[in-house]
Structures are given as C-alpha cells and as structure tokens.
C-alpha cells in the first residue's frame, strides 16, 4: 500500500524516450490502415438516389473490416448548389478538413499543389486492370504524376440520346447504326456532322428541334468542344500556342452558323437543365447528355423514354469525339492518415465494387478504366432494352474521348472551359451577327489574357 502512494521518479532520459515515442506515434499510425484511426471523406452527392446508399454501405464495410472510423459527407455540385467546389477551396486554403475530397473535371489542376501524389494507387490499378482513359490522365496528371485517382462515381460521357421515332421519320434507323450488340464502325458511317446538319431543319419543323445549347454551362461547353475537335480545331494547342485563326476553326464556326438557325431560339441561354427538359418534354429530337435525362423520362414520361436510343456523337472531318467528364478522388497533403485513405480508394476502385456502384446508378457512371466498359448494366437497362448499350465507348465505335479546351496546357484550358470561350464565339458570330474577323480577334485577345495570367 505504502509503495503505491509514492509517485515513480521520472528521469530526463525517461522523458526524452517518452517524447520520442509520442512523436513517432502518428508515423506508426499511418503505416497501415489496420492501425485504425479515422478518415473523413467528402464525395460527390450522386444525383441518382440509389447510388449513395451503396457507396455508404461499401465505405462502412471497409471501415469495419479495417477498424477505421470513416465519416462520409456527400457534397453537391451544380450551378445553384456548389458545395463541393466551395469546400475544396476552403479546405485547400485553410489546410484542414476532410482527408479525401472528390474533384470534378478541372479541380485536380486547381488544387494539385495541396494534394498527395497518387502514383502508387493509380499505378497499381493500371497494373491490375489496364489503362485509364486518356482524358482522365490529362486532367489528373501534373508534371508526370497522378495527383488524384480517376473514379467511376459521377464520371460521365455526353453522347447522343436520340428519339428513335424522329430519326425513323427521316429514314434513319438509329438502332441499326448502333445495335445493342457488338458491331462495327461501318454501320454508323452515315452518322456525321453533315447528317446532323441535314436533319436539323426537319427537326425544327416537326416542333422537335435538337436540344443543343450554346450557353455557358458545362453541357453546352462539352458538346461544342467535341464538334471543334472533330473539325480538327483547337483554341490553344498542347504547346500553349494560340490557334484561334486556323482554317479548321473557321470551318467549324461556319458550320455553327448554318446549324444555329435550326436550334431552339433560346439555345444561347441554355443551362444544364434545359437540354434535359427538351428531351423529357418530348419536344427535342436529340440531346448530347449522359443518360440522366432518359432516366428521368423513364420515371416521368415513359413514352418518351421508350423512344430513346443512346449512341456516340457524330463524326467530323477529323474523327469522332465523345465528351467525357471524369470525377477524381484526391488525398489532401494535410491528411494524417494518407495510407489508409489510399487503401480505401484503391479498394473502392476494384472491379467488383465499381460494378456494384455502376449498377446502383443505373449505368450513369462510366469507369475511367477502359477494361471495365463491359459491365452487364448497359446491356440490361430499359426501355427499350439495350438503350444504353452504346453509352460506354466500345472498341468498334472508333471514337475518342474529349474534354473541351484540350489539348491546351491545363492552366489555360480550364479558363477557356469555365469562361465558355468557344460558345461565346459562336454566339457572337451566329446570334449577335459579328463578323468572323471581329470574333476571332476577340477570342485571341481573351486567350492571350488567359495565357499571361
């Protein structure tokens, strides 16, 4: 009893040892996820309601298995509700917050200096499953290093979603162009931008103009960027040189001059909801969009959904380009549990998990790993059966993915993209009736500014 009341003597040597052990504790802690700890994740709040519970279930499963206390926050991202980009900015500047953050298209390039490299995770996945989509690589790599992991959640193509009956009325069977089974590019050789232009007046006359916007939000920016690439045009090339006054650019702008009169009268004020409304209301012959509009039509306007067929964008003089907007998961440098975070992200991108998440989103999500484009979900979604079969790019589509403003260096491209520079050019030329020279001069001045920023 007496001995227990006497406090043990702490020598300076003991104190130093204890201090060193305490300092090493966090290092030990991050060595392996099995060492437990906690993780805070901020993922994109999926707009398909069934997708979020599956993600929550998977994250909880991993946490339980690895004795890690995982918190998952789902943050929305959209024109009127931009929680995700605002949280990214706040956490990057303050150096505190979640361990893992979701990043949309250009955000990795915006915050790469605050992110931990992910070469080990991405490299491992590539070794397991094969290459990533080149657009995902362009957006996630900085100076040769993967700064974030491309993920399937929220990643989307924006291909054609067309009304079968309208095209049939014009003598075209889109289901034959792109059947719901392996085919070859020759069946769809007629699907060109010339064909799109040729059918446009008939669509407008039928009261179903194409639901294609020339506004300043992403849906509008993405499809026009794909058209420009298909014509061989670029605003800025990969070396950073301005290419605004090229022949390809002029040819593409002239194409838009011919197309715009057949588009809806309010095309230049379209936002990301306008094209969906065009399709779901039954007043649009086609849109370039992920299957979200078809999905809502299936819920609210089944007759329209039954008449929809999804397939790649038209071919231009320089090829077929399909807009691709991938999402990414990055680990902040300030995270104290980076290895656990990486383990979790790698685990979530294993084929089985990606497939489960794709099924939950009814095939909306497009995995950035190309070998995962063979999931059954795209074959089985209906009505009509197979309507999404050609949503993921198949090898025989002979198509290339594209993000508008590529291949310009990312710090210039992101400005071209967010300022919708090409769409403003089209509006000035085709709606405001400015001359080609005025428009090209304006674009050159604008882009010069972006380069010098």
């Amino acid at each position, binding site marked *: 009893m007496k001995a227990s009341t006497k406090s043990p003597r702490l020598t300076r040597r003991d104190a130093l040892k204890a201090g060193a052990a305490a300092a090493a504790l966090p290092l030990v802690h991050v060595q392996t996820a099995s060492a437990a700890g906690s993780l805070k994740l901020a993922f994109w709040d999926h707009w398909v309601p069934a997708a979020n519970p599956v993600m929550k279930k998977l994250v909880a499963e991993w946490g339980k298995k690895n004795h890690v206390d995982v918190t998952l926050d789902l943050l929305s991202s959209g024109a009127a509700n931009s929680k995700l980009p605002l949280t990214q900015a706040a956490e990057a500047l303050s150096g505190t917050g979640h361990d893992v953050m979701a990043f949309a298209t250009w955000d990795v390039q915006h915050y790469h200096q605050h992110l931990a490299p992910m070469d080990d995770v991405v490299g491992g996945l590539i070794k397991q499953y094969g290459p990533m989509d080149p657009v995902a690589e362009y957006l996630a790599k900085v100076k040769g290093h993967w700064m974030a992991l491309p993920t399937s959640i929220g990643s989307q193509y924006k291909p054609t979603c067309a009304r079968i009956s309208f095209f049939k009325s014009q003598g075209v069977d889109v289901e034959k162009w792109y059947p719901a089974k392996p085919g070859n590019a020759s069946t769809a050789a007629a699907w060109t931008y010339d064909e799109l232009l040729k059918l446009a007046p008939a669509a407008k006359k039928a009261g179903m103009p194409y639901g294609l916007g020339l506004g*300043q939000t992403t849906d509008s920016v993405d499809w026009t960027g794909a058209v420009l690439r298909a014509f061989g045009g670029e605003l800025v090339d990969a070396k950073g040189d301005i290419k605004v006054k090229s022949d390809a650019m002029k040819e593409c702008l002239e194409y838009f001059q011919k197309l715009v009169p057949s588009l809806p009268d309010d095309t230049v*004020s379209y936002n990301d909801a306008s094209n969906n409304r065009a399709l779901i209301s039954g007043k649009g012959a086609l849109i370039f969009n992920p299957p979200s509009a078809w999905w809502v039509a299936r819920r609210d306007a089944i007759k329209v959904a039954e008449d929809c067929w999804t397939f790649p964008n038209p071919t231009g003089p320089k090829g077929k380009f399909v807009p691709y907007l991938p999402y990414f998961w990055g680990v902040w440098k300030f995270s104290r549990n980076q290895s656990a975070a990486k383990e979790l992200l790698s685990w979530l991108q294993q084929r089985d998990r990606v497939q489960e998440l794709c099924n939950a989103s009814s095939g909306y999500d497009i995995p950035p790993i190309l070998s995962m484009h063979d999931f059954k979900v795209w074959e089985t979604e209906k009505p009509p059966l197979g309507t999404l079969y050609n949503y993921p790019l198949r090898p025989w589509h002979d198509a290339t993915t594209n993000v508008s403003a590529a291949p310009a260096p990312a710090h210039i491209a992101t400005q071209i993209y967010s300022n919708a520079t090409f769409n403003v050019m089209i509006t000035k030329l085709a709606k405001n009736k400015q001359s080609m020279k005025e428009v090209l001069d304006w674009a050159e001045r604008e882009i010069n500014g972006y380069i010098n920023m």
Partner: protein
Amino acid sequence: MADGTTGAAASGVPARRAATRGGALHRMARRRSTIAVMMCLPLFALIAGLVVYPFFYSIYLSMLSREMDRFIGLFNYEYLLTSDTFHLVVFQSCLFAITAVFFKALIGFILAHVMHNISGRDQRVWRGLLLVPWVIPPALSTLGWWWMIAGSYSAVNWFLQLVGLHPVAWLAITGWARFWVIVVNVWFGTPFFMIMYLATLKSVPEQLYEAAAIDGATGLQKIRYISLPLLRNIISITVLFSLIVTFANFDIVEILTAGAPANSTQVFATYAFQVGIGSGNIPMGAAVSLFIFPILAIFAIFILRGVNRRAKEAI
C-alpha cells in the same frame, strides 16, 4: 491578496506606491469611457475577425499569382482593366444595380404610400402579402421565374401562344435577358423599401397632412412637400444599403442566365465565382470582387455626405 497586502505594508514606501497605482487603476476601471470601451471589445474583436482581417486578406490574395505562390503586385488588376469581358462585367453590374435600385426605391415609395392610406386589418393583410417575395429564398424564387420565362417551355410563352402571339426567347436576347434579371431583382427587393418607407411614414405627424389639406394641397403636393423631405434620409440609407447588396448579387444572375448570352448579363459576383472557383484562379476572383469596393465607396461618400448635411441642418 492577503499575502500581497501584508508584503506591501511590511515594506513601507513601496506599499504606498502600490496603493496609489492600485487606486489609479481602480479609478480608470471605474471611468465610464473605460467601461464603454471594455464592453465594446467583443464587438471590436468580431469586426476585426470578420471584417477587417478578411478585407485585408482578400487584398493580399488579389496580389498573388494564380498558384498563390508568388507576389505579383497589381498585375491582376492591370489584366482586368484591359479585358473586354471585364469591361462588359463592369457595365452590366452598374446597369443592373443602379436600374434595379432605382425601380425598387420608386415602387417601394409608391407602395408605402398606398399601404399608408389603407386602414386597419386590410393594411396588415396587404403588407403581409407584399412581403412574401422578400421572405422567399431568392434561389428558389429565381428558379420559379426561370420556369416562367426560360425559352421554349415557359409559362409566359405558353400564354403568348395562347393569345396568338409568337413566343420570345427571353433569356437568349441580350436586352431581354438584362431586363429580366433586373425585373427579378426588383421583385425580390421592393418589399424591403416598402416596409422601411412605410415605417417612416407612420412616424410623420398626421397634423402636417391635415394642415396641408386645409391649405388646399393636392395629393402630389403633400408627397412633394411633406413626405419626400421627411423621407430623404431613409431613402438615402436604403438606397445605399440596397446598392451594396445589389452590386454583390449572385444567385439571380447565376440561376437565370449564368452570364449568358455571351457574358452580357455577367455581374461582379458571378464573374468572380467563374474566375475564382470555376477557373481555379482565386487571386483573380478576389481582384474582381474588390473592384466593387471603390465603386461602392464613391456611392457611399456622396450618399452619406447628404445624410450628414441634412442632419446638421436639422440641428
């Protein structure tokens, strides 16, 4: 405390000095001005933390490079001054804010007088109804406006077609798009003006209007010679307040047009967001936002000078 006292007493002179010092501190602490300053300290701390620090931090931020790793002085401002798009933003912001505030003040003034002349329960009902636009979150009400006027499927165009007229692409034509963002802002902000003016009108002695009526003044003359002079200060203050809020408006433009067509409806706040968050250039976004400051400072100086002058005249 007991130890201290004993110690001071034991040492003689130092004890007296300590007592004198303690007395001076005690007197200072009991001074009313000191108490006032002490009581204001939490407020000063709040203002320093939430106003002064963010303001100077945003100035500092606006002088950094895109990657925020280099100090580049006034380069961001220089760039903006040469940008065609930014010139358009300045023009549209001024047009939007000045026109909207003018109409909010005018309609608010008229409505306040109409309300003032409605008596009893009816006034309460109308007042409540007219306040509705102001209490609905603007993001939601703007979405409602978008559904009414957005292009091909809008209620307004449906009505136009019903009466045999052609639909109009309201948000796709520069003039109309600018018109509608102003209309929505006026619709949202007018109740604020109305309620402020109505409150002031209620404090105007009724005898003034009665005396004017006996002298044969018409309704317009009563407004010109009684209401307006008495409302001048509140008009100035509400106009200044509304100018500040309207210049910083974001949601109406973002939801209704997102700056389209061709940036013609872009205002400071939407452009700052597009550049700062959309393009990942937070320093440039900060520079865009700070351009509002000198413009508002000019308005504030003129308006507050008028208020002060009238206050001195009243004394």
